[in-house]
């Protein structure tokens, strides 16, 4: 089962939930953890994996062979991303704007453009205990997250439990991360910010057709509007974690709740079972419809 952990608002405890879930399942079932928050990957700070394999992730960008180039300007015309200009009798390229679509090379009438690799980040795999850990880390100054997220997701594997830590928000990098999951856990906090951004996140998973459940973090610091919204929308609230200075201190050191307070292990293990039941029920419901 593939479960994505996402949240409309940043800093609600998405990584905390994903990491503790992985640790609670470790030893019970094979677990794979994918950190898709490639702009700010944080899960490794808590799971502390040892990486045994790293590779550079690149996108193909144009490389112009001047001898063959007739300066016809076709490449500049077909580039939808302003990554190519033709000036002073030569082609000027800007790899940092390129999306790697290949239009310039494909449509160059004199085959003067070949493609070369342009680095956007690093894909690292390793192990944290018995958890297989995969992380994408985008180079600072690179604007393009989705190709790196796709590279992380290619390392999906067939473990019984695959946990995906998604970036915050609801836009394209989030969709790329969450798409294809069996279930999405939406982490929020009981504040107007949390509620507003939760609604956006629910809209996103519904658009993708992925079933979801809500986790309310710092549940004692706020109001009841999030829970009322979930009730009205028929979204299950699967877990509530109270605010506790001790938990905050534990998090700030990079320690994990289930390690320091083992009474949380069964809670997270149970969360996984609940999700599993819902996914099976959903699959059955779909089966019944046909």
């Amino acid at each position, binding site marked *: 089962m593939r479960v994505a952990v996402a949240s*409309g*608002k*940043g*800093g*609600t405890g998405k*990584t905390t939930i994903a990491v503790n879930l992985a640790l609670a399942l470790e030893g019970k079932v094979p677990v794979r953890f994918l950190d898709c928050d490639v*702009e*700010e990957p*944080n899960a490794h*700070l*808590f799971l502390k994996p040892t990486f045994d394999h790293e590779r550079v992730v690149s996108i193909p960008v144009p490389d112009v062979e001047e001898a063959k180039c007739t300066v016809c300007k076709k490449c500049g015309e*077909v580039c*939808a*991303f302003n990554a190519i200009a033709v000036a002073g009798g030569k082609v000027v390229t800007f790899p940092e704007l390129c*999306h*790697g*679509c*290949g*239009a310039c090379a*494909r*449509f160059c009438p004199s085959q003067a453009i070949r493609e070369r690799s342009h680095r956007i980040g690093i894909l690292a795999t390793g192990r944290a205990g018995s958890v297989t850990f995969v992380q994408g880390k*985008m180079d*600072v*100054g*690179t*604007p*393009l*997250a*989705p190709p790196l997220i*796709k590279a992380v997701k290619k390392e999906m594997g067939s473990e019984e439990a695959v946990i995906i830590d998604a*970036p*915050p*928000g*609801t*836009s*394209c*990098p989030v*969709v*790329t991360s969450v*798409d294809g999951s069996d279930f999405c856990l939406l982490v929020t*906090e009981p*504040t*107007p*910010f949390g509620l*507003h*951004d939760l609604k*956006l996140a629910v*809209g*996103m998973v519904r*658009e*993708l057709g992925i079933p979801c459940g809500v986790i309310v973090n710092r549940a004692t*610091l*706020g109001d009841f509007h999030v829970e009322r919204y979930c009730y009205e929308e028929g979204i299950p609230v699967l877990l509530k974690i109270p605010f506790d*200075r001790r938990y*905050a*201190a534990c*998090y*700030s*050191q*990079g320690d994990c709740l289930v390690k320091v307070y083992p009474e949380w292990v069964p809670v997270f293990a149970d969360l996984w079972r609940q999700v599993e039941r819902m996914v099976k029920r959903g699959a059955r419901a779909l089966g019944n419809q046909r």
Partner: protein
Amino acid sequence: MQELLVISGKGGTGKTSLAAAFAVLARDKVLVDCDVDAADLHLLLRPQIQSSNEFWGMPKAFINAEDCNKCGLCQEACRFGAIEDYHVNPHLCEGCGVCSRLCPAGAVVMRDHLAGYWYVAHTPYGPMVHAQLGIAEDNSGKLVTVVRQAGRELARERGLNLIIIDGPPGIGCPVIAALSGVSLALVVTEPTVAGHHDLERIMQLAGHFRVPVEVCINKFDLAPAKSREIEEYCRAQGVEVISKIPFDEEVAWAVSRGVPLVQPRGGSRGGAARAVRSLWEKLAERLDVLARRPGH
């Protein structure tokens, strides 16, 4: 005209609450919410919308089923895996147009695409520009650019010389769009391993774009040792932490009631509120110094 960007790298550090407090304390300014993906500033500032504007993203490919002869060329050529069974998945299409140029039957067209809205609004604290990107949309960087541009025009029109920007989280495309060319960036971090990690990345990014930076640590007393570590890191980078704001339940309480933490007169005397007021004074001074810099 000066632009102050409040930014964080990591989400949930208190960026929006601080931006809202500055909105109350600063004079003669325009407010801009560049967190177009999950805009929250309006929840505290309660804007009355004066104009609502459409935001058009990159065009997306669409296959006319009647004209499609199912040759599969488009599917093969698409680098984004956006075409399957002669159908375009709009979430994956990046609008490069390769499929449309390639289609021998002329069945693939590039369609303009309404990706969200942006608003010019009135708040009790001054004019505001904010936006809402459609759910599951890309092009947030482009929308950030549009919103910033609208903010600058508004400032010029009304003769206001400061723009306060609430930035998006992360270090990707929308952050780069929000960061480039601002006068000063205030990075709001928290005393956690994740906060520290993300602070380093956002500082690198600001350095890359040569933007002057100030750092403040929010909720510093939840982990004093971690706070000291962050202060040391900043010092090594040649930046003094400009402010340390204590954890204060009053902040969550203010957010819950949907009001800014501070008021122009009176208001809270709590620890966080006091720290935020003195932070604003320091920032205003810093902005003054930057404005007087030669070449500005």
